[in-house]
């Protein structure tokens, strides 16, 4: 181990201890040293993850492995105790419910609950070298049923609703050019703006769909329409990008607030 690594580790450990003791001494509550330890640990892990912005390092590795290990174990425990013990067993067997110290729900017994049990066992057959093929049955069931359910849902939202939303009048309240020019204004509810927005919707949807048409080469007028489609997509993505980045900034503000308020107590 390098000398600088040892010194860095010693400095970080010392800072951690100082922070813990300081938080323990100045924090009010029933268990100040435990609270102080938890806040300091959270701050350390936050900084360890953020250290990734500099480069990969042992502190990031530690935080990463801890995060992955804890989350995987937590998900497994949650799945077992909440789904199997919490929901399934109380509906199937009073004996097993008693074993797990959960209350059996009388009247909720249903033979259909055995189907997920069987599928769950079949999935675990992957661990058996000879019966591994059995795990394909539940997989086929999961993929097939969801695809079937989504088929109808997507046809409704992406096909029928798409058509009905695109059918917009291009000429709104049209009473001739004289009326149009004499009432010309740029208000959001004005005739000009409304007609322009409907035109953008119609051309945007039509050209966007043409871009996603794969059965024909994008050349000639078809290619030009496709190019308009990709431009409209890119403008939409640009707006979406800016909007989402602003949301991410608020997440960063949340962590910075934690460090400066809960840990360092610089801000109130």
């Amino acid at each position, binding site marked *: 181990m390098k000398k600088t690594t040892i010194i860095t580790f010693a400095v970080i450990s010392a800072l951690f201890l100082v922070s813990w003791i300081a938080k323990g001494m100045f924090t009010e509550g029933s268990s100040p040293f435990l609270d102080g330890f938890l806040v300091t640990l959270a701050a350390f892990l936050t900084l360890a993850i953020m250290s990734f912005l500099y480069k990969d390092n042992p502190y990031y590795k530690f935080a990463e492995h801890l995060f992955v290990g804890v989350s995987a174990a937590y998900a497994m425990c949650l799945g077992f105790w909440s789904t199997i013990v919490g929901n399934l067993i109380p509906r199937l067997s009073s004996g097993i419910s008693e074993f797990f110290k959960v209350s059996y729900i009388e009247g909720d017994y249903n033979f259909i609950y055995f189907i997920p049990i069987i599928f769950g066992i079949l999935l675990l057959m992957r661990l058996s070298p000879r019966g591994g093929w059995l795990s394909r049955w539940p997989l086929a069931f999961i993929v097939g049923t969801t695809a079937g359910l989504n088929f109808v849902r997507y046809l409704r939202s992406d096909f029928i609703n798409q058509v009905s939303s695109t059918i917009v009048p291009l000429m709104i309240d049209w009473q001739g050019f004289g009326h149009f020019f004499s009432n010309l204004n740029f208000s959001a509810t004005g005739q000009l703006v409304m007609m322009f927005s409907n035109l953008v919707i119609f051309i945007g949807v039509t050209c966007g769909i043409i871009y996603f048409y794969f*059965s024909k080469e994008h050349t000639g007028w078809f290619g030009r329409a496709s190019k308009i489609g990709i431009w409209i997509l890119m403008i939409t993505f640009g707006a979406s990008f800016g909007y989402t980045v602003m949301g*991410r900034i608020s997440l960063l503000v949340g962590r910075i607030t934690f460090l400066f308020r809960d840990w360092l107590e610089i801000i109130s």
Partner: protein
Amino acid sequence: MKVKLLIMVVMMLALSSFCFAQDNATEAGTEDTDTTAVVESIILPAPPGNLTGIDKPNDHGHAAILSWDLSPDDGAGENSVLKYEIYKWVPQLMLDINLVRDSLSVIQRILRNTTSGITEGTQADSMKIVFEKYSRDELFDIRNTLIAHVKQENTGLAEASNSYPENGAWLFVDKKPSGTKSFVHIGSKDFKSAGFVPDFANLYYRVDAVTIDGAKSSSKVLGPIQTSGQWYNTYRTPVVFSVLFFTLLTIYFVREARKGADLYVRPLGGIEAVDDAIGRATEMGRPILYVLGLGSAADIATIASFTILGRVAKKVAEYQTELLVPTYDPIVMTVAQEVVKSAYLDAGRPDAYKEDTVHFVTQSQFAYVAAVNGIMLRELPATNVYMGKFFAESLILAETGALAGSIQISGTDEIAQIPFFIVACDYTLIGEELYAASAYLGKEPVLLGSLKAQDYAKAAIILLAVIGVVLAQFEFGAAFVNLFEVAN
């Protein structure tokens, strides 16, 4: 124990009867006040007229649509109507069951360790005090007994509702502001819920016009009406036709593809780049990282990604390059293992397949990202392929990959994440290009046929939109536009 429980239930029902007596008195008192109020100084509004009601069509039952004519004093006459109150007549049995349901709801809140919604000084508060004296197991037993009781008593509701107007009371359902002429009473289908409305039972409603002073006049009683569920939702007829249209198209093109018809699919930039990227990884002696995203094995994007993974794995096996596939979902991992294994077999290199090529990481979103980022910086893959369903982690992954100097190819149908991939990756498959890529690479008749059917469906959308836009200019065009309205 059982005797104790029984005593408990009987006690509770006795308490309930007492409370109900009070409720009835209050209700009766309200009516008395209404009539005496006329004699005093408050002027009663004219009642709403012509109250009608029908079973709500195209639903699972338990709901009714009420409509009425506005009170002459609503917006005209005295202009004194502030709101309308909707009441439903329920038999005594329903009131008894409701009180047991209240107890059930309190027990369930205590069992969930939350007493929110139980306010001080109410009947529920006193029940809470009673129930808190019992152990958790005893509470579970009481809950089960109460559920069984409610279930059994509910069977008598239809018969009890025939006793109108005897042995029952009017219950407040909802209120609507002045000017409202209809109301949809959507009851619950869960017999354990307080809002339960039984199907095939006689229902009676009345609507009161209420003034700002609280004076109210009741409409004539509507009833009996009954609710029931329907097998076919006529509002969704357009969905049936579109399903049939698309299914027939798909079957036709799959058959054509199987017969060997040449179904053209235009080349996709991102997919053409995959082969080059694999070659680059081989030359550099570095692995290829394939990320399937956070979707489940049933997500369409993940299914499309499996096909692309198969193609990548086959090339990797041929070039003898290393492949890394960290997965988020255990079922996705299982399918991905099968796909990669088959690809190695197809390439004639089953011996080169390693079980841990596809491995599970965790099912926590950001822990997964932290782990994949770590892999990128430690293993330094030459190529990163992100295909599937991605969420907030997309930019974190793609940015780290760009920092590590990898060639990056991405594809997702999550609209909100595509911009991040576009800015941080070398090639991006936008939305449906991902599905097309799987058909383009797989060249399987089923995939090619469904892709062709999709293209024809898109052409139909354009055609219908053009016709609709032209017809929308005319009044008679509204009928065409309405063809595509799908109500719930």
